[in-house]
């Protein structure tokens, strides 16, 4: 599914805590992409043995399903859906 296809795209903010491991961020981004979301903003802080990542995402699929897929990652310690930021209009 192309995340660019829909005219109105819900937007979400996810906070994610991951263990510091090789390719942790790539793993996170890969799941986000393949499950049908686009990252519009991303911040990351290193905190001891963890990485704290805040993602703003756009996508028309179920964000709870994305959270379930992210929670399956062995490197992910915690995923929290901070807020549903609303609907953003994009050109088709």
């Amino acid at each position, binding site marked *: 599914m192309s995340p660019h296809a829909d005219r109105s795209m819900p937007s979400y903010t996810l906070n994610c805590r991951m263990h510091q491991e090789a390719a942790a961020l790539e793993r996170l981004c890969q799941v986000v992409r393949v499950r049908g979301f686009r990252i519009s903003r991303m911040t990351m802080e290193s905190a001891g043995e963890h990485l704290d990542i805040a993602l703003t995402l756009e996508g028309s699929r179920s964000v709870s*399903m994305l959270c379930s897929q992210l929670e399956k990652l062995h490197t992910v310690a915690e995923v929290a859906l901070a807020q549903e930021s609303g609907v953003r209009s994009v050109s088709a």
Partner: protein
Amino acid sequence: MNGAQHILEAFHRHNISTVFGYPGGCIMPLYDALVDDVRVEHVLCRHEQACALAADGYARASGQIGVCIATSGPGATNLITGVANAYMDSTPMLVITGQVPSGLIGTDAFQETDILGMTLGIVKHSYLVDDADALPAIMEEAITLAQSGRPGPVWIDIPKNMLLAEVDTPALAKASEPEADCPDIARAISLLRAAKKPLLYSGGGVALARAEDSFRAFATAAAIPGVVTLKGIGNPGKNNPFNLGMLGMHGSRAANKAVDECDLLFVVGARLDDRATGKLDTFAPKARMIHIDADSAEINKLRPVDLAMRGDLNQILAAFTEAMVEEPLTISNWQKQCKTWHTTGGFQAADNEEALAPIAGPAFIRQLSRIAPDDTVISCDVGQHQMWVAQHYEFDHPRHHLTSGGLGTMGFGLPAAIGAQFADRNSTVINVTGDGSFMMNAQELATIRRYNLPLKLIILDNQCLGMVRQQQELFYNNRESHINLDDNPDFVAMARAFDIPALFIERTDQIRRGIETILAYKGPMLLHVAISREENVWPIVKPGGSNKEMIDETRRTNTSTKEQVA
């Protein structure tokens, strides 16, 4: 003890006695350690893809973890298809690859690839070892992780210097098991009791959870009509009177009809794959759903559930069985209806009595099913023969049916059969393949010969890519495009070149003798079976279409058909 020796120590701790691999530059320290190890049998395949697929077949047949090993670069990239295959079908697998020494990573060194980055989407988890002292703990965690919860492949990429480094005796870590989540079994039982037309829908998760006995106890106690996915074939056993067989694109009319009519779908260890459900909008439109699975991400993924349960299938099913024994369901009308559908809309293929007639694929498989011992392991490839096996072979156990369900990997069958034969050297293992699939890993005939494996190969040869040809005929106006294989090699001569005896048959009256001959032979043997190029798998649902719109042989058109099983 160096890093490589710690890997073997981990194998010993976890009773891993068979591994499939291919040596090369960066993995040589591990192969050097193998020289002195008498507890691990290393099976040398002839291509790394076959190593991964053999490890997959070993795991499926045995229920134990499969292990494959390769070097960096092309060795690692050749594993990818096999690992993706394991990922899609949730096979527990440990993948070990050598990597260029740490200092050379990122310098485009000889045989360097970023295999960790390349494979993120096809592994349950992966590691790049950057500290040799961490290797023993990583091994422990990886082996546990591959087999826990929903199993899957775990990949450890190890730079050569980490394999050579001296490693102190480690403190071992253990991955935690996922917590079960069974909110309300009483409510689930009451949903089941309230249903007038409940249907059991089971998949590959039953065998993965080693819950075959619990599943059968429940299916028998509840006497619920049931359908199975491709990977669930064998779950109910041969003699379950309420089993309607496989559903989906090439499922039986009876199975798809029952799904269409049921008012409760009781899903056990299945993920509602698109090949099984067809168009989701029209799938089980009247049904509520109870979904029991090891993976919480599968719950509500494609269809909202009324009640979900995640955890040990054995415990959950035992609780249901107890309730069913105490108070059986009263669904006799539904049972009768399903039996009628099964009689009129089950998989049927007339056995051609005409001795000189060409061999029909389904008829051959039915004969094979009657003649082969009950505990025979059938390892399929992908295509028409795979579906004929799924439709017409009667399996008594899910581990007897090895098939590439999720990825649909042509070339799976032969190496997977090798893996299954190593899982049990005394079992009867048959690779049923097509002429297209066979050629994708035919080099493994050398592996069969090297280890003198007694496995049997049956090539159903229609001189084309039959499943693609069938879909071109039905859905692309019969415009054949690049499916012709009429320049296949002489398969009998090819087998003999590997010192494997072979037979060729082409007439119906040769089927029995052909099958009996290869089964009676003590060593490996190949049976080359010529079948018609024009034969199709029936019924079929157009890809993306509704399971209500099955097309059968009498309607070889693009027109949707109305359900005929009423």
